[in-house]
């Protein structure tokens, strides 16, 4: 029973880590895509 609980916690931790990595990768992807879609003109805007 104790082993099962440990294994359950280990799997939960691995799932949480995977979600964290995926979210981080999505942040990077959204940032890069935003820069690409804005293009070079973003620097020409009036201040």
């Amino acid at each position, binding site marked *: 029973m104790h082993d099962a609980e440990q294994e*359950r916690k280990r*799997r*939960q931790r*691995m*799932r949480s880590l*995977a979600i964290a990595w995926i979210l981080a990768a999505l942040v990077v*992807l959204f940032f890069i*895509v935003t820069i*690409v879609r804005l293009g070079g003109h973003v620097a020409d805007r009036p201040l």
Partner: protein
Amino acid sequence: MADGALPVTRETFEADIGGDVADYVALMKPRVMFLVVFTALVGLVAAPGSMHPVLAIAALICIAVGAGAAGALNMWYDADIDARMARTAARPVPRGKISRLEARDFGAVLGAGSVICLGLMVNWLSAALLALTIAFYVFVYTMWLKRATPLNIVIGGAAGAVPPMIGWAAATDSISLQSFVLFLIIFVWTPPHFWALALLRTKDYAQAGVPMLPVVSGPDATRRQILIYSLILAPLGMVPAIIGLGGTLYSAIASVLSALFVVFAYDCYREREGDKADRAAKNLFGYSVLYLFLLFAALLVEQAFTIGGIALPLPWTS
């Protein structure tokens, strides 16, 4: 688990201690995902004009996740069937690694996320096609056709054939005859591919109550249909060369591959008894995967060496 007499119902499946990350990956049917991404890549590369590499990668990620969502939703709904078939009994839901509801929610979140991200990052036409594909696969194929008619694979195969059109739409924001031809090739390829597998798994499908063609009409009728579809597929495989999608390399490879497909299909049609029949069906199934991969790889290679409509010099072109 393969005993059809077991009282397996859709409510039976509860996860034991929660799935591992690998179980969630398996839920997305990674091998199917690979073929989906590959054919979408070919549609994307074969499309006229250019696309920023970052947006192309983003589009392919969204398409891959969308395909994974469809796979997860399929495993949610079909858990009862999967548990009764030797080929699918080890999937995460029937094995008790992931509960049915977890699989459903996982698929729904990934499906919605992939469509929204594709729409926001690339364009809404490709996102609409992706949404339509997932919906068709889940609602039309999985929930309706698969359990209702031996034509399940014929009509349901449309879902697996759309990815090149999604790739094309991502690159051009349009649908064209060329992308429709790529769709047609996969659409006609699907029945002989799956029926070859079904010939080997007829007992499994019968036990699970899935009306696949060999179960309903028998193996001989299935072999005849395989041959007919192969004879349609062979000339269809040459059409990309006629409409300008493929060149010399594609024509040469497609003609050899298509001829071989008919040879394997005829062998499967001819051998009807014992080990030889099983071997012929197995050979056709294996070759059909290789056929689609090499056919689209030929298009990809040829398109990769063509920049701005100008073909770069290749050893096989003058």
